[in-house]
C-alpha cells in the first residue's frame, strides 16, 4: 500500500514541452501508468505510446485519467489545473513554479468545490516507491519501505531519502508538498492519509522557514497521529524578510523562524533532527533499524 498513488493510478501529463515530455518518459520508465497527454495542437498524436489530446476534458473522457501532473508554464498553469479538475481528475500534481499566489488561492476554492486534491504548486511531485511516481523526483534513490516523507522542497527530500534508503529505511510514499506560500494539501492532509496507510510505520516531516504549517502539523500529530513522527527544519541561518529561493520560504513574523518551529515540534513531543544524518538516527530509534 501507499497513499494517493499506486501502480494502478491512471495519470495524464499536461504540458508536453521539453520538461513535460522528458518527465513523462521518466515516469513511464519508473512504472507509472501514464494514460494520456494534454497539449493544445498536439491532439491526435502519440508520445511514448500514450495518446495526446488537445484538452484535458477529452483526455479524461477518452482514457479515464484520474490524476494529472502539470508541467504547463506559470502563466497558463492556473487554467491547466482548473481544466484537469473540471474534467474530473481527483488528484492534480502541479510541478510548475511561479504561479501567482492569489491565483492559486482562487484555484483552491474551485478545487475544494470539485473535490479535487492538489499537490503543489512548485512541487517535485510524489512517489510511492515500486508503484508509481508522479512528478520529477529521481526514482533511483527511492526504495519501498515503511517511512512516509513529507517535505516542502525537492533536492532536500532527495538528500533525506537517499540517506534513509542507504540506511535501509525504504519509503511508503514521499511527497514534495511544494515551496509556495499557498499550496494545496499540507502536512496534516498527508499525515492523516499516512496514519491510515498500512505500509507506513513512521513519518518524516521536512520543514523550512516561513508560514506556520509545521506548527499546525505538530498540533495535529499530537492529537491524531499514533505512528512515530520525526521532524527536520531548515533555514536556521536565514535572515528575516528574505525569500530563500522558495516563494514561501521567508521569515515574516516570529512564527516563521526555524527556531519557533523546532520549539513547537519538540513541545508537542516530536523529536527534531539537527542534520540529515540525525533524521536517520531518529528513525532508526523509532523503527529499531
Amino acid at each position: 500500500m501507499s497513499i494517493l498513488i499506486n501502480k494502478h493510478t491512471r495519470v495524464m501529463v499536461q504540458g508536453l514541452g521539453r520538461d513535460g515530455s522528458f518527465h513523462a518518459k521518466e515516469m513511464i520508465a519508473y512504472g507509472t501508468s501514464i494514460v494520456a497527454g494534454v497539449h493544445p495542437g498536439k491532439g491526435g498524436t502519440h508520445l511514448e505510446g500514450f495518446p495526446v489530446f488537445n484538452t484535458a476534458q477529452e483526455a479524461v473522457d477518452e482514457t479515464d485519467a484520474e490524476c494529472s501532473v502539470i508541467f504547463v508554464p506559470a502563466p497558463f498553469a492556473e487554467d491547466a489545473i482548473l481544466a484537469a479538475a473540471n474534467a474530473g481528475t481527483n488528484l492534480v500534481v502541479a510541478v510548475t513554479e511561479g504561479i501567482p499566489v492569489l491565483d492559486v488561492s482562487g484555484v483552491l476554492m474551485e478545487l475544494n468545490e470539485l473535490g479535487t486534491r492538489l499537490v503543489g504548486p512548485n512541487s517535485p511531485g510524489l512517489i510511492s516507491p515500486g508503484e508509481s511516481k508522479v512528478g520529477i523526483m529521481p526514482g533511483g534513490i527511492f526504495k519501498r519501505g515503511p517511512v512516509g516523507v513529507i517535505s516542502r522542497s525537492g533536492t532536500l527530500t532527495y538528500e533525506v531519502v537517499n540517506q534513509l534508503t542507504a540506511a535501509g529505511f525504504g519509503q511508503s510514499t514521499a511527497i514534495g508538498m511544494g515551496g509556495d506560500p499557498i499550496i494545496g494539501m499540507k502536512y496534516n492532509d498527508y499525515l492523516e492519509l499516512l496514519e491510515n496507510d498500512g505500509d507506513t510505520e513512521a513519518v518524516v516531516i521536512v520543514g523550512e522557514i516561513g508560514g506556520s504549517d509545521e506548527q499546525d502539523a505538530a498540533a495535529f500529530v499530537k492529537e491524531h497521529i499514533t505512528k512515530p513522527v520525526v521532524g527536520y527544519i531548515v533555514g536556521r541561518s536565514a535572515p528575516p524578510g528574505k525569500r530563500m529561493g522558495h516563494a514561501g520560504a521567508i521569515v515574516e513574523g516570529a512564527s516563521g523562524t526555524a527556531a519557533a518551529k523546532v520549539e513547537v515540534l519538540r513541545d508537542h513531543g516530536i523529536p527534531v533532527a539537527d542534520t540529515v544524518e540525525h533524521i536517520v538516527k531518529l528513525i532508526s530509534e523509532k523503527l529499531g533499524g
Partner: protein
Amino acid sequence: MKLEEFQAKKLFREQGIPTPAGIMVTSAIEAESAAQETGCPVVIKAQVQAGGRGKAGGVKLAETPAEARRAADAILGMTIKDLVVQRVLVDPAVSIAGEYYIGITIDRRKKIPVMMASASGGVDIEKVAADSPEKIIFQDINPERGLRSFEAKQVAFLLFDDKKKALATASIMVKLWECFRKVDASLAEINPLAELSDGSILALDAKIVLDENAMYKHLELEELRLPTPSEEKELEATRHGLSYVQLDGEIGCMVNGAGLAMATMDIIKHLGGTPANFLDIGGSSSPEKVVHAMELLVSDENVKAIFINVFGGITRCDDVANGLVKALEQIKTDLPLVVRLTGTNEEEGRKILSDFGIRATGDMTGGALKAINLAAKGGGS
C-alpha cells in the same frame, strides 16, 4: 518586491483611495519648491523600505518651504537601517484626529487573503497583534469574490459609529482590496489610516509588497523597482536564473535546490562555520549558470572558502560535473573549493571532476566540515 511609500500612494490614488497630494523629490531644492506647490506646513518623509523611519529622524515637519529644504537636506543621505535615503516625499501636513490601521495580506493557513483592521493605528501592527490581539479585526476575503461592500461595512462600523466615517472607511477597504487584486500584492497596508479633524478619512502612509510570481502580468510595475545595493546583487542573480541572498559569513555556498541550500547553510553553522550566502542554482546543469554563481561567490570579499553541494536528481551528476568544469575553467580563483556530488550518475560525475583535479566528496556533512577547515586555514594565512 516592496514598493516605497510614494509609489504605493500613487497606486492607491489611482484606485480612488484618498491620500495627501504629496510630491516625491530627490534633492533639498526640489523639496522647497514641492512645499511651495503643496502648501505648508508639510511633512518630509524619507523613502526607504524600513520601519521606524520616524524614530530614526527620517520624518520631519516643516512650517515653511525654506524649512522643508533644510529638513530634506538633513534626511537625504541619512542612513536608516543600513539604507541610504535617496528620496523624500513632501506631503502636505494634515490635522489628525485619530489613527487607524487597515491592511490586506495572505493568510497562508486559510489559503486566502485576509483583511485586518484596528482602531490602534499608527504603531507597529505586529506589536499590537502580539500584545493585544483582540484589538485587531480579521475579515476573510474569498479570492474569487473579493472583499464585498457588506463585509467592509461590517468591519468599518466596528471602527466608527459615525455613518459618514464608517462608509468612507468601508469604501477605502474595498478599494484597497481592488488595488491588492489588481497588482497581485502579497501585502497592502494603510498605517495610519487617519481620521482628520474635519472628519474625513485619509491614507497617511502606504505600503505595498508585490508577489514576485505575478510580475509577468505587470510589466509596468517592474519599472517601480528601486533596488537597494544588496537587492541589486540578488536581482542580477535572478536574471541569471539563480536565487541568491547575501549573508555575512565566510563559506560561500552553491547548491541545487532551495531546501538543500538552506540545509547546507544550516550544517555549516551547526559545525561551527558561517555561511556567506544562500545560493540556489536550480535544477539545470547549464555551465553559464554555474559561471555566474561562481562570480557571485568570489565577488564577496568575506568568502574564505567555497562549498558546492549538488544532489544529482533528474539532473545527472555527469552533466553537473561537466558544467562545473566549464565554469571553473572560466573563473579563476584562489579560494579553496570543496565539491560534494551525489545522486544519479554520481561515479561518472566524480570521474570528470577528478580528471580536472577536483576530488569530490559524496558526503554533505564531511564536505561542509572540510570547507570550514579550509576557510579557517585561509583566514589564518
